[in-house]
């Protein structure tokens, strides 16, 4: 009697695993379609234009190079180099932009004072800072972290300001009535959690802009990272390496974004 029960339970467990796998597949299916479509068009262009493999290598050749770079671990070294820079800069950015954004969202007077500075600096692309970053920091890590900091700072700042400004005044009143005496406790217990969903959106967007900025910074001046992989590929006329770097950037971008979406769904209250 125990065997059928056991196997039924097992079956159910397998069923759930399969369902989860199917769900995961369901989410990645559109990306799979897109990848196949891109490969087909790409292959067609290669065949029709008879492009030389040093200019536009075929998808299969790129896949082969991709496999080599994965096998010898080189790709992971570059991914980690880029990712590490983005993570450090993005965290630094959050550390500065979230408190500043909360202050600006709360105090109209402070916002009036600081807003012109923000609006003047915001349109300057992080890429425009690359020359100065090299002059100031050389080609070491700090220059690249500086560039990504610029690229991640404004999305976090602006979404934090918007998050605080959009708080329903009712929450503030309820917080005051139920014992938030100091503005510190009101910030910690009401304003921060109330604006958190908007802050998380800013963190997600800025990770994307940071990921774009680091590649650009590495293209110009670096000895590691995906941007370097691409720049170096160009110098040694290895278009396949360039494309491997580009594919890695795209795939990782999608991956990071889905991680953030998951975290947002899991932890933010709205």
């Amino acid at each position, binding site marked *: 009697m125990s065997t059928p029960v056991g196997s039924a339970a097992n079956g159910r467990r397998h069923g759930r695993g399969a369902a989860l796998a199917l769900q995961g597949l369901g989410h990645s299916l559109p990306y799979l379609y897109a990848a196949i479509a891109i490969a087909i068009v790409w292959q067609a262009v290669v065949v029709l234009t008879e492009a030389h493999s040093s200019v536009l290598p075929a998808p299969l050749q790129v896949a082969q190079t991709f496999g080599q770079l994965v096998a010898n671990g080189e790709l992971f070294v570059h991914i980690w180099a880029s990712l590490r820079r983005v993570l450090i800069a993005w965290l630094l950015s959050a550390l500065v932009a979230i408190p500043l954004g909360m202050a600006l969202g709360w105090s109209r007077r402070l916002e009036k004072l600081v807003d012109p500075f923000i609006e003047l600096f915001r349109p300057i692309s992080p890429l425009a800072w690359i020359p100065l970053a090299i002059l100031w920091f050389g080609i070491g890590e700090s220059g690249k972290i500086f560039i990504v900091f610029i690229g991640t700072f404004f999305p976090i700042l602006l979404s934090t300001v918007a998050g605080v400004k959009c708080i*329903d005044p*009712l*929450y503030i009143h*309820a917080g005051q009535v*139920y*014992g938030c005496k100091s503005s510190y406790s009101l910030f910690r217990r009401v304003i921060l*959690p109330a604006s958190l969903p908007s802050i998380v959106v800013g963190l997600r967007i800025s990770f994307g802009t940071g990921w774009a900025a680091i590649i650009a910074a590495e293209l110009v001046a670096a000895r590691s990272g995906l941007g370097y992989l691409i720049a170096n590929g160009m110098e040694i006329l290895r278009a396949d390496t360039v494309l491997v770097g580009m594919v890695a950037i795209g795939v990782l971008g999608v991956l990071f974004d889905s991680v953030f979406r998951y975290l947002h769904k899991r932890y933010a209250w709205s």
Partner: protein
Amino acid sequence: MSTGKPIVLESLAKTYETESGAVQALLPMDLEIGAGEFLVVVGPSGCGKSTLLQLLAGFMAPTAGEARVDGARIQGPDIDRGMVFQHYALFPWLSVIGNVEFGLESKGIAKAERHTRAMDCLRMVGLEEFASKKIDELSGGMKQRVAIARAFATEPSVILMDEPFGALDALTRRFLQGELLKIWRQHQRTVVFITHSVAEALFLGDRVVIMTARPGRIKSEIRVDMPHPRDVTAEDFRAYERTIYELLDDELAKTFRPGVYPQ
């Protein structure tokens, strides 16, 4: 157990400064509310009854006069004056019990006791099984029950209620009125309750204050001498209702000029 405290309003007045000039919301008002009394304020919309409650909550300062709770002038929001808002104002990032515990945490009550007391209050409103639910999973009536539990949890001397059942359907409203009365009689807090439902005012209040149209002042006050639970279909209930409607009709007529359709 602490109980309700008396409230005294002395020439309490409020004028708003707007771009088109000063607007008198509340003319100087004198009123004494007894300790543990259930006072209901009714009036046409825009009569300043919400302004009155905001002043009592301490969200803004009066232009003139003052309000005192047990002799102490109201100078800002205080945890000793709880509030139930029309649109609940529960924190959606906290669970049901997290909301009820919020004020207890402010009072520095230890975690274990906080939980026990919050559960007691949730039991009081019949929501103990929903303690760990999210706020957005509740219906409007349930949300307002959580808000009532939150208000009573901190054992304030005064509870201010700003049209708390205004957004609810008639059946839920009737049920919650009864629940509120039970809780109030058990806890003996001073309640200032605002509504524009005359039946609600008469069902709940020890005393009903009727306000004039803007600028608001007290037009009349009526002591309700009927034992609880009150029968809304009884003849004396109807008689009270008629009296109040007559008083209010005069005020409503003033807000609409003759010959002009109200917009």
